[in-house]
């Protein structure tokens, strides 16, 4: 039997969407949270206060601290505080200390002394999860990149399948069961399509060296570091000369960068062989300075004399294209308003996947509306839908609850927050298996509503930085997190109440639905 091109595409859309939808939902939701990575970290480490500080002063503080505590170390790292990041982070290699021989500290930008903040991954956890999926390297990256490919495929096949893309461009008809789900799915997909296409295509660009490494390995073999050095103009650092030479003051190097390119914000600083005559200092431009994520925007100085040794290579057209896709994906350049829009478009992507999963099941459930039990395979999809969507929301909420409730002295506290995340996710799966579909949805959404809505209260009770304080002192990051949690709670409560109130959509919509069905036959999805 020969089927049409559009039917074939619809089939592909339906089945790849189902198989990868659950994972894609999690990738999109955690990726969306990542647009507020620094803000989430700010909330999860309330001990770190933000103070306005001159970059030169911050650098001076970092240098003083590292000189006093890590003079023998081979490498120092400094991460500057910014509008979004309160912390001045310093790190250094120390063969005898820390995890994997690396020590990192957070300095208070007023005193220059380390802050004893609670151990938490914060926003970094969601960021890492959304492309590594808590799997060993490189499998998580491969799988998530493959999911991005499926998303791109889903978008293209979706466009082909969608018959009335222009005729129904402005169409959303709520309160009509399956029809409304399809309208919603199509509308969020089409209206935010530039974002969806950008985000899935750029994921492939971000990991192109991982998924299509043949060109690189043909020239460089296994020495991929040399490839990146050649590409981005990184210099080979000479070995320490074992001749002591005081490190040039870092604020002076910062001033040199400002003279070369006024207004530059510096993100990271790396010092090799500090205190040696072969010291090298590399200052990298903050990713917030350009739309394109320019990995080669850096300046390398001789750490002993303070002479400028090299600047990142000028970018070719191909590199700038790749950097632009990377920059658009990550949105480091976005100010507060654009960041919020990024966040909402991310939620839109999540919603496209979620509505698709719900529709797949809804269509097939209609055929079994009379019988009391769903066939095995549909029940499996139902359970996975519930656990992957409302279950994930519960897991996210649990992560934040664990952040406030786990004792600060607990060994491996940061790991335990992550454990709580996965344990809650697992429990929600068990719950979805035990309860009937609608009840499971309603109960998990209601619990999620409570968990999110009460987060501001929990914050106020366990820290001194609740809404009362944050609104008064103008700490908009803290207040923004609390208010967003509250809004999420209200939204989930609304969803839960919809699940509780209308046991059968069909009964309520009969008159209008019947009239509709006569005039416009539902299209294939």
């Amino acid at each position, binding site marked *: 039997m020969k089927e049409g091109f559009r039917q074939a595409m619809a089939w592909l859309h339906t089945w790849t969407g189902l198989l990868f939808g659950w994972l894609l939902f999690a990738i999109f939701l955690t990726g969306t949270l990542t647009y507020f990575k620094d803000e989430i970290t700010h909330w999860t480490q309330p001990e770190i206060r933000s103070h306005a500080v001159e970059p030169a002063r911050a650098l001076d503080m970092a240098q003083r601290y590292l000189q006093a505590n890590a003079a023998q170390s081979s490498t120092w790292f400094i991460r500057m505080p910014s509008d979004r990041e309160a912390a001045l982070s310093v790190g250094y290699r120390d063969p005898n200390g820390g995890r994997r021989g690396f020590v990192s500290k957070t300095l208070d930008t007023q005193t220059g002394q380390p802050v004893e903040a609670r151990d938490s991954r914060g926003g970094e956890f969601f960021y890492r999860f959304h492309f590594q999926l808590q799997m060993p390297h490189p499998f998580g990256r491969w799988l998530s990149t493959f999911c991005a490919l499926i998303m791109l495929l889903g978008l293209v096949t979706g466009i082909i399948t969608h018959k009335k893309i222009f005729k129904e461009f*402005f169409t959303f008809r709520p309160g009509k069961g399956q029809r409304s789900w399809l309208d919603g799915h199509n509308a969020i997909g089409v209206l935010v399509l*530039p974002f969806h296409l950008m985000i899935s295509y750029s994921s492939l660009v971000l990991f192109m060296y991982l998924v299509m490494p043949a060109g690189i390995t043909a020239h460089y073999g296994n020495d991929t570091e040399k490839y990146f050095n050649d590409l981005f103009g990184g210099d080979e650092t000479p070995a320490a000369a074992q001749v002591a030479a005081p490190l040039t003051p870092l604020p002076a190097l910062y001033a040199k960068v400002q003279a070369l390119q006024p207004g530059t914000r510096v993100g990271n600083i790396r010092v090799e062989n500090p205190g040696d005559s072969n010291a090298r200092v590399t200052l990298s431009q903050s990713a917030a300075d350009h*739309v394109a994520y320019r990995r080669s925007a850096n300046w390398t100085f001789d750490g002993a004399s303070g002479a400028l040794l090299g600047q990142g290579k000028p970018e070719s057209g191909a590199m700038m294209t790749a950097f632009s896709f990377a920059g658009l994906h990550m949105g480091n350049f976005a100010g507060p308003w654009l960041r919020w829009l990024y966040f909402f478009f991310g939620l839109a992507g999540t919603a496209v996947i979620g509505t698709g999963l719900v529709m797949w099941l809804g269509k097939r459930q209609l055929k079994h509306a009379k019988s009391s039990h769903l066939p095995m395979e549909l029940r499996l999809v139902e359970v996975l839908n519930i656990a992957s969507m409302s279950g994930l929301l519960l897991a996210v909420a649990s992560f934040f609850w664990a952040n406030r409730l786990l004792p600060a002295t607990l060994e491996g506290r940061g790991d335990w927050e992550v454990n709580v995340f996965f344990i809650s996710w697992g429990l929600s799966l068990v719950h979805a298996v035990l309860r009937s579909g609608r009840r499971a949805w309603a109960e998990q959404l209601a619990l999620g509503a409570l968990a999110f809505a009460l987060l501001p209260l929990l914050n106020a009770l366990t820290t001194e930085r609740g809404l009362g304080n944050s609104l008064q002192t103008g700490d908009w990051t803290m207040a923004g997190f609390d208010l967003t949690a509250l809004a999420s709670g209200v939204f989930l409560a609304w969803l839960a109440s919809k699940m509780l109130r209308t046991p059968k959509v069909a009964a309520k919509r009969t008159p209008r639905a019947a009239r509709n069905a006569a005039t416009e036959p539902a299209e294939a999805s």
Partner: protein
Amino acid sequence: MLGNALIAFAGFAALCLAMEKHFSDLLGRKPRPGQLKALQVAGWLLLVLSLVLSVHLRGWAYGLVEWAAVIMAGVTLWVFVLPYQPRLLLKLAAVSVLMGPLLALFAV
């Protein structure tokens, strides 16, 4: 950015009204001859105007990105609020036609 957002929002409102089905649903009457065409032209002109202003004010890199963001946000707001608050959206579109260029003008 707000000025451009309002102009783009008004542009999409005009493009939506340029479709006969939406015109009669929203305004409760049949369009006069030529009216739909005029709305269509006006809609596209508003969208192009917001693009030109955005690039002019913010440069190519930021201008293009912000323009893409505000038009997506504007049209999504329009489509999903329309079934619930059509009158409010029509008023908002009318205000946007006036306020958008005004705000964009002051931002220069």
